[in-house]
């Protein structure tokens, strides 16, 4: 009697568990960009050793100096340890249990997008690329031009608008091409802003970077279009190690857009990119990112590990580097786009919206290193935490002893949704020159019941109301984005918050 009762309890429990699991699967499969494409891959063997590094270099047909550089980095990395100072809880990563190189099977050289694998074009379509592209390709008058250097998995498959850029003297290449075509330029700047030894993930990137982008804007040239790279991580278990180098010569200007979505994966994927920017006298670089890699499911399973080193060097006087980022994706984000302000009167800016939901963790912010006289920096950070997530702003403002009349303004606002999420602000301020003016403002708030009811009474449902209020909160940053990105970013904030209310 009692046995049979137990059995039926057990059955009921199992049924319940199955139902829960099914529900989780159903919900997880609703991830908007949760699909993967069938394109043949060419893999490096699993694991990381000198042979892996040689394999990658060989695959890319790199010159000897590049291989030596990679090997030097690899040997350095082997002796380093993963940093643990961030407010992140990351399981041990087994670097030997991952692939470090994957590329689509080589096709014939492509002259235009028409020749691109239709499967890849479908990927673009899902990413929403074609709108601007099609306008330009169809020769629509007045269409805003966006050049797309497509990094599909690890290899650039097509670079568009090369001709128009070439006429302007702009070099816009995959970094592997640039290494072969412009070795002197690449050698001169690669690793100059982010030294090989900088940090664990940057060193790893030096050893195994798969591909990325190289941009050079010659003296006095205003780049005739926004440059855009869409990254996709598409091979299961393939770490992505992008390498980007942008050099803006005297008096030049470039706006660069980086946007990412990733297909859904069950296993965590490692991403460790390095981005280096150099601005000479009177040059300006505007670097915008919308990051939407798979954040894991609502139980914290899966998702991308994103360890990025981004740094800009304002080398010349009156130069300016501006970072704008909207970060909604990845299970773990470790990212501090920074500016080293060496040139007199140079300007650094950091505008950030970081949104975390479910079990996402983000530790992000910036470093403004003031070495030059009269240098100025602005930091606007908006953190939004929902679900069980943790969102940390970590920022450093450093003023060197010779940097006279430095000004910095920092504003850090945190918005909490629900009562299970965390927001943390960790500012570091180091001032070695008494003429500096440093301002730091920080607020933490919640969406109030008053605001919610007010918006709902006007006709918005719960999710639309949250989305509206959150977008308002992030407005100061969103307005810094180029138009086409701003619209995408607003939608992204709404999508990322789905299910976080009610």
């Amino acid at each position: 009697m009692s046995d049979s009762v137990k059995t039926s309890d057990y059955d009921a429990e199992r049924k319940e568990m199955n139902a829960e699991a099914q529900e989780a699967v159903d919900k997880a499969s609703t991830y908007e960009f949760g699909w993967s494409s069938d394109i043949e891959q060419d893999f490096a063997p699993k694991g990381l050793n000198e042979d892996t590094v040689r394999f990658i270099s060989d695959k890319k047909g790199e010159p000897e100096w590049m291989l030596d550089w990679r090997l030097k980095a690899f040997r350095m990395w082997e002796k380093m340890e993963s940093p643990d100072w961030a407010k992140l809880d990351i399981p041990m990563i087994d670097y030997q249990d991952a692939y470090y190189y994957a590329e689509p099977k080589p096709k014939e050289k492509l002259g235009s997008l028409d020749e691109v694998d239709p499967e890849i074009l479908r990927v673009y379509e899902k990413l929403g690329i074609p709108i601007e592209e099609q306008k330009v390709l169809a020769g629509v008058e007045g269409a805003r031009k966006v050049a797309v250097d497509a990094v599909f998995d690890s290899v650039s498959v097509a670079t568009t608008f090369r001709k128009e850029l070439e006429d302007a003297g702009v070099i816009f290449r995959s970094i592997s091409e640039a290494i072969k075509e412009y070795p002197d330029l690449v050698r001169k700047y690669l690793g100059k802003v982010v030294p090989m030894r900088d940090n664990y993930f940057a060193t790893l990137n030096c050893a195994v970077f798969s591909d990325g982008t190289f941009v050079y804007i010659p003296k006095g040239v205003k780049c005739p279009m926004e440059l855009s790279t869409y990254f996709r991580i598409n091979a299961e278990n393939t770490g992505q190690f992008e390498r980007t180098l942008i050099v803006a010569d005297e008096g030049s200007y470039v706006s660069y857009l980086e946007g990412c979505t990733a297909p859904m994966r069950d296993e965590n994927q490692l991403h460790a990119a390095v981005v280096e920017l150099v601005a000479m006298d009177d040059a300006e670089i505007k670097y915008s990112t919308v990051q939407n890699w798979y954040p894991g499911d609502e139980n914290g399973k899966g998702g991308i590990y994103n360890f990025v080193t981004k740094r800009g060097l304002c080398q010349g006087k009156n130069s300016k580097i501006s970072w704008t980022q909207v970060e909604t994706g990845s299970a773990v984000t470790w990212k501090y786009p920074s500016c080293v302000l060496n040139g007199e009167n140079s300007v650094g800016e950091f505008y950030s919206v970081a949104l975390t939901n479910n079990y996402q963790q983000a530790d992000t912010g910036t470093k403004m290193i003031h070495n030059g006289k009269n240098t100025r920096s602005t930091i606007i950070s908006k953190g939004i935490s929902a679900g069980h997530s943790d969102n940390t702003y970590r920022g450093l403002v450093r003023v060197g002893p010779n940097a006279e009349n430095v000004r910095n303004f920092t504003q850090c606002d945190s918005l909490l949704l629900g009562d299970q999420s965390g927001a943390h602000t960790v500012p570091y301020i180091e001032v070695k020159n008494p003429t500096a003016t440093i301002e730091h403002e920080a607020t933490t708030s919640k969406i109030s019941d008053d605001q919610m009811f007010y918006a709902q009474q006007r006709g918005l449902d719960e999710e639309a109301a949250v989305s509206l209020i959150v977008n308002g909160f992030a407005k100061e940053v969103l307005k810094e984005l180029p138009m086409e990105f701003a619209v995408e970013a607003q939608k992204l904030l709404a999508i990322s918050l789905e299910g976080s209310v009610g």
Partner: protein
Amino acid sequence: MTISTGVTHRLKNFELKRNQMLKIENLHATVGDTEILKGLSLEINAGEIHAIMGPNGAGKSTLAYALGGRPGYEATEGSASFDGQDLLDMDPHERAAAGIFLGFQYPVEIPGVSNLQFLRESLNAQRAVRGEEALNGAEFIKLAKEKAALLKMDMDMLKRAVNVGFSGGEKKRNEMVQMGILDPKLAILDETDSGLDIDALRTVGSGINAIMRKPDKAVLLITHYQRLLDEVKPDFVHVLAAGRIVKTGGPELAMQLEEEGYEAIAEAA
């Protein structure tokens, strides 16, 4: 003779049914553990303007919130229907789409969201629920300009963030512009007159008349004072005390309240 009477009677019934907008019967509502509304009944027909007056704590704002569906204001007994639909069964945004507008006593700030964006999204959300097509940018701006002019409100104000940095009077006028744009069937205006100077009161009053005094619309004015009722003439005045309507009359009741105070009238009732 007999037949003709029957027809007239039926027509009258039909007319009544068609005109009835809001019907509240024996409504009890609690906030937290406290019962605030204790059996309130009220009927409002299209084309009518009702005023509810009463002392502080009588339940005036609770009535407004309960009708708007604010979480935390729970109806525990009785019923409320709007155009024949069970109001208490609807989400706040569904009530808005059905045509109920709440003018807030303390309009809320939404930083970073412009009035125009807020109203366009709200209006289009309502239209979507009603199965109507969304207004495009140009159509919406035209509508907003027209309503802003009616309330003597600068368009620049509509470009600013919702109620952020607005004076008390500006906030109340902004509520009226919102009402004009959203074009509800029933406006429940909770102390819209508080914080207004004489000129602003006039503007708001004429705005309410222009927007809402129509055969197919109705207004429920919640107020402490006679002065708004000089601008917006009510058809019915109700006295709310201790969670129930204790007396109903015409405009003269408001005058009487002004002279004698709530207490005397509540006690007499």
